[in-house]
């Protein structure tokens, strides 16, 4: 019974962390059809911002939940203004340019912080479940992810900002004709996507540590989640991360963590072959 509970927490945590690292990418891809290959580096920058802020005396939770998203969001807006906006409609060039940005950021951060792992210890310690122990922090990450997804749903569904976002997503020309400025919506969207990535990177930092190339470890997982999920930002991210999170944990349980990831990636390729439009391209079409 205790074992089952611990395993359930692990699976939930795998799902939540997949959703967390993917949601920023999903916002950018779903809204703008831009595949941001520098997504992993946005996560990495989030981690560094949080750790840097903590080391300079700012409260850990404020560093993670406020500083990291704000810093990375600002970087995101800067990137959109100086780079992405010249490449709208050229998906492949966008992928290549963001790949260049990814290498550039890895190089820059290696130059500044060195090629070493920095970390902060996970707060809150552990908790006993029968004979097993689990970290309270992972429960917090699950809770934050759920809150974040619910908040995003409410914003998209019930606010003016959400209405603008959905309108621009469905038909940019019509939105422009009604007086919205799609370039501004795109800039804001990219900033929000980057901020979400920064938040995710900061929340993961206490678990895995941060090093300049950490983005590579996450980028494939984030991509398969977003593409496996399909066009609907929220339901796509949730369904795909639930599916892949479960596959990954079951695979890890029976083999090793590395092969758990390998099995997940292979399953994702099969899924994309079967459902090229993603899960929400076939099911849940009308959902957000």
């Amino acid at each position: 019974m205790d074992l089952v509970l611990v395993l359930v927490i692990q699976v939930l945590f795998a799902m939540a962390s997949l959703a967390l690292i993917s949601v920023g990418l999903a916002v950018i891809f779903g809204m703008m059809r831009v595949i941001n290959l520098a997504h992993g580096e946005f996560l990495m920058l989030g981690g560094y911002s949080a750790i840097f802020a903590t080391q300079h005396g700012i409260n850990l939770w404020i560093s993670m939940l406020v500083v990291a998203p704000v810093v990375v969001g600002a970087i995101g807006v800067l990137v959109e203004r100086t780079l992405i906006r010249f490449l709208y409609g050229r998906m492949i060039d966008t992928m290549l340019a963001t790949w260049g940005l990814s290498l550039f950021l890895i190089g820059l951060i290696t130059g500044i912080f060195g090629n070493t792992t920095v970390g902060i210890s996970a707060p809150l310690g552990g908790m006993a479940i029968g004979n097993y122990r689990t970290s309270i922090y992972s429960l917090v990450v699950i809770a934050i992810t759920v809150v974040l997804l619910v908040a995003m749903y409410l914003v998209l569904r019930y606010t003016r900002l959400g209405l603008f976002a959905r309108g621009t997503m469905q038909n940019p020309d019509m939105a422009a004709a009604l007086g919205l400025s799609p370039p501004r919506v795109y800039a804001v969207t990219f900033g929000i996507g980057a901020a979400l990535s920064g938040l995710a990177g900061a929340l993961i930092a206490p678990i895995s540590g941060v090093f300049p190339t950490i983005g590579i470890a996450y980028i494939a997982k984030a991509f398969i989640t977003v593409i496996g999920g399909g066009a609907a930002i929220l339901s796509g991210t949730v369904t795909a991360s639930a599916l892949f999170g479960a596959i990954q944990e079951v695979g890890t349980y029976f083999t090793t963590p590395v092969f758990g990831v390998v099995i997940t990636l292979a399953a994702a390729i099969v899924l994309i072959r079967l459902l090229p439009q993603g899960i929400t391209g076939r099911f849940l079409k009308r959902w957000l």
Partner: protein
Amino acid sequence: MNGRRWNGGGWNIAGLVLVGVIGLGATIGLPMWLELASLLDITVYLILAILALSLALVWGYGGILCFGQSAFFGLGAYAYAIAMFNIGESTIPFILSIVLPAVFAALLGYFMFYGRISDVYLGVITLTVTLILFNSVNSTAGPEYHIGEARLGGFNGIPSIPPLNWPGFSGSPLDLNDLFYVSIVLLLAVYFGLRWLLVSRFGRVMVAIRENEKRAGFLGYDARLYKLATFTLGGALAGLAGCLFANWGAFVSPTIFGLGQSAQIIIWVIVGGRGTLIGPVVGCIAIQWLTAWLGTAQFTKASLAHVVGPGIADALSSVLGFADLSNTNLVLGAILLAFVLLVPKGVVPTLLDLARAVVNRRRPADDLVSDKAEGTT
């Protein structure tokens, strides 16, 4: 058309002759002028140039954006290494190192092209496949992971791979001079082979599909089949490069599958120019040379001060905290960004356009025709 016009055909023949002359000159001249160490450096450029050509074909002419060309490169290298430890005579390992990546490319290509997966997802899938291979091979460090006599070695890689030998003579391995000759001859053979392929019926259909897949389909060509064939050939060429690469260093490690390797191949092709063959070769050699130079030249604060003045260097390094700017990722990333934004066609096509504009300046009426006659270079 009127004989005086310096049109596409003229450029093509001039280009072919030029490459032939340079190739022949390098084959004869380089071993005479250079010491063995420099020759060894050149050899790896030639080997990687074959890899660059494989993506030049698949992406530049097939229009298939493969982010995972390094998967086939790595498979070729590993196939050669593993087979070599088990067989000991290099003929079969050499063939395997080409056939195995080709078969893998064919399976993957069948999966993607017949699944009608779009361009962008294709990029993501090939990237994912590369990461799968990297993760899998990286985690096979223990002695329990072996194929026959060959231990996979995980992240440590496979050291002391036996060199190629002349077919049938297992007692006479290739020395480093021989490897240079083999590499340059194979590079030239691949180059001229691809040039021939591109003027053949197959090549023309391939380019037609790149230009407009639907229209080619309406004309009765099965785009999926042509793409699959192109992709498979690209895999085979990358495997060949991998085999030579495993010979060059007598070593392979999983980083050969890594994202960094894939990014480099893409950068060679972008810098040199999509839709040309000589461009990616030039791009590959230039970027590799630059990378090697960055690795040896230390851009310390002192050398920075030499260029921009001590005041600015002090300010820069105190703001950024840079001790060392000789950072390959930083430079490669900046190059990739700059080329996508500013020179999206790549160096060679841009230069050719300029040259054409200069030569044909007095005959503006011909411009329309000469644009259409733009051929393969």
